[in-house]
């Protein structure tokens, strides 16, 4: 049995999305040692998978990758990917003990050059989780081109142990004998940046997302529009046809008591408008219709962005969609209530995108159990002082960054991460405990 390795840090940042990366950088720039823990193979979270950001239409990857590259090269930051936090125990006012498990990647991370020769040699093809199953990936693979760290991983669950990757690797970095490594981390502070989960539309069977191939989620459309997209073009997943009548259904899993999420997700209106504009660019002949209850364009430049979409020809229908039915040719009939007239109407489309909402991520509850991690009534982390110190959790020394505390867009996430890191730095400075 391998022994538990012990490490000390000034801060542990849980979650390697944009909030975690920003927090880690700020704390590390102040001279403190930071451990950034990410459960996935790559840092960058959901943002690195996006096509562009609203309302500027800047390339998401172009904003994310410099930050990621900076954090990866920072001398004060240690990054553990494919790592799970099992428990965090508060020891006294200024120190925590964290138990974490770094899962085996079956690659010597220090030697992998990301050449992808292992990927080329691997004969196994399984659905690619980073492309939402729309295309295959190998069992020896790099998650995607701009992944960080850009090193391979072996999907041991789907590996046939043929050894082709090991034979092809020029640096001999593949090691099937790797085991999970357990660590005990002593840290002065913890930043929780575990992000959010997206609503699973299968929970609304009347939208047929489980059975109709051409009913997809907004995150799948992000992938279809991204530079590292699965199909190289925007086509329907059912038959490869270029869509020309596209619909967005806003508030799927948000503002809906029937699915247990009564709150607005804050980002769906704007990301849908962004995607509609991008679709108008890549499919100039397509009709794009957005079915909405209310358009909430509350941020800087958002209203102008909405007006711009209308000017480009995006059709906005104030209507509540009740049912989506698939036809034999894969087209879809939307039955909706026209809110302006109060009448029930039907419209045909050939691709429907469900603008799915933001839900809390319950992971922190698992590792903070004994300290009674408190949540607000919508299951997001409880903010101890919402107005004056929004990054304080109910546990002293544990700070909240990004969507851990509620739905927010990327600029607000960066601001929240800035606030969390400043509070963390202040807290570490007050610490008198030697660790």
């Amino acid at each position, binding site marked *: 049995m391998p022994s538990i390795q012990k490490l000390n840090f000034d801060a542990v940042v849980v979650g390697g999305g944009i909030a975690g990366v920003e927090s880690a950088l700020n704390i590390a720039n102040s001279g403190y040692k930071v451990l950034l823990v990410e459960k996935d193979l790559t840092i960058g979270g959901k943002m690195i998978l996006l096509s562009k950001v609203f309302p500027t239409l800047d390339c998401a990857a172009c904003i994310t990758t410099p930050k990621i590259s900076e954090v990866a090269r920072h001398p004060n930051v240690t990054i553990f990917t494919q790592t799970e936090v099992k428990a965090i125990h508060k020891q006294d006012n200024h120190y925590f003990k964290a138990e974490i498990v770094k899962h085996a990647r079956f690659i010597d991370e220090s030697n992998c050059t990301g050449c992808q020769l292992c990927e080329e040699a691997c004969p*196994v*093809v399984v659905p690619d989780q980073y492309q939402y199953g*729309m295309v*295959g990936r190998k069992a020896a693979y790099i998650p995607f081109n701009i992944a960080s760290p850009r090193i391979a991983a072996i999907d041991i669950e*789907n590996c*046939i142990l043929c050894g082709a990757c090991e034979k092809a690797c020029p640096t*001999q970095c593949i090691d099937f004998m790797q085991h999970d490594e357990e660590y005990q981390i002593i840290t002065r502070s913890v930043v929780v940046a575990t992000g959010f989960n997206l609503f699973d539309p299968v929970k609304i069977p009347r939208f047929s997302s489980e059975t109709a191939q051409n009913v997809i989620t907004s995150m799948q459309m992000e992938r279809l529009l991204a530079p590292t997209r699965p199909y190289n073009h925007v086509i329907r*997943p059912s*038959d*490869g046809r270029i869509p020309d009548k596209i619909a967005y259904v806003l508030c799927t899993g948000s503002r809906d008591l029937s699915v247990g999420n009564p709150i607005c997700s804050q980002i769906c209106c704007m990301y849908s408008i962004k995607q509609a504009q991008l679709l108008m660019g890549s499919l100039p002949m397509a009709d794009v219709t957005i079915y909405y209850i209310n358009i909430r364009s509350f941020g800087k430049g958002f209203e102008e962005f909405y007006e711009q979409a209308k000017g480009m020809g995006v059709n906005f229908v104030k209507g509540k969609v009740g049912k989506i039915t698939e036809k034999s040719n894969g087209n879809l009939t939307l039955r909706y209530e026209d809110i302006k007239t109060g009448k029930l109407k039907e419209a045909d489309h050939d691709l429907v995108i469900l603008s799915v909402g933001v839900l809390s991520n319950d992971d922190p509850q698992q590792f903070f159990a004994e300290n009674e991690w408190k949540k607000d009534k919508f299951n997001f982390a409880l903010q101890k002082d919402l107005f004056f110190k929004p990054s304080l959790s109910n546990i002293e020394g544990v700070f909240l960054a990004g969507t851990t505390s509620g739905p927010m867009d990327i600029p607000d996430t960066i601001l929240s991460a800035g606030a969390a890191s400043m509070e963390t730095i202040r807290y570490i400075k007050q610490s008198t405990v030697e660790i």
Partner: protein
Amino acid sequence: MEENKEQTFRQKRETHTVPQHVKDKLKEYNSIKKRITEIMGDEEWNIPNLAAKLEMSTTETLYYVMSMLKFGQVVTTGVDDMDEYYFYKIKK
């Protein structure tokens, strides 16, 4: 050096059994890929026509062709006159 390079997957075989469904999936993928390659030959195909020839659903056909496109075995050659479907060809 060559000896060391091939060692670890063999060692892993002693403690890890490859599940049957993983082996079956690999066989299935290879057989469909072979059929797609044979049917496509030197011709250009769109997804519905290829699916009909394969007697497979268009959704599944799209998955396999797009995976082959990703791995550089298939290329996109253009779009039809109606702007409805792209054509794909085996990369020689």
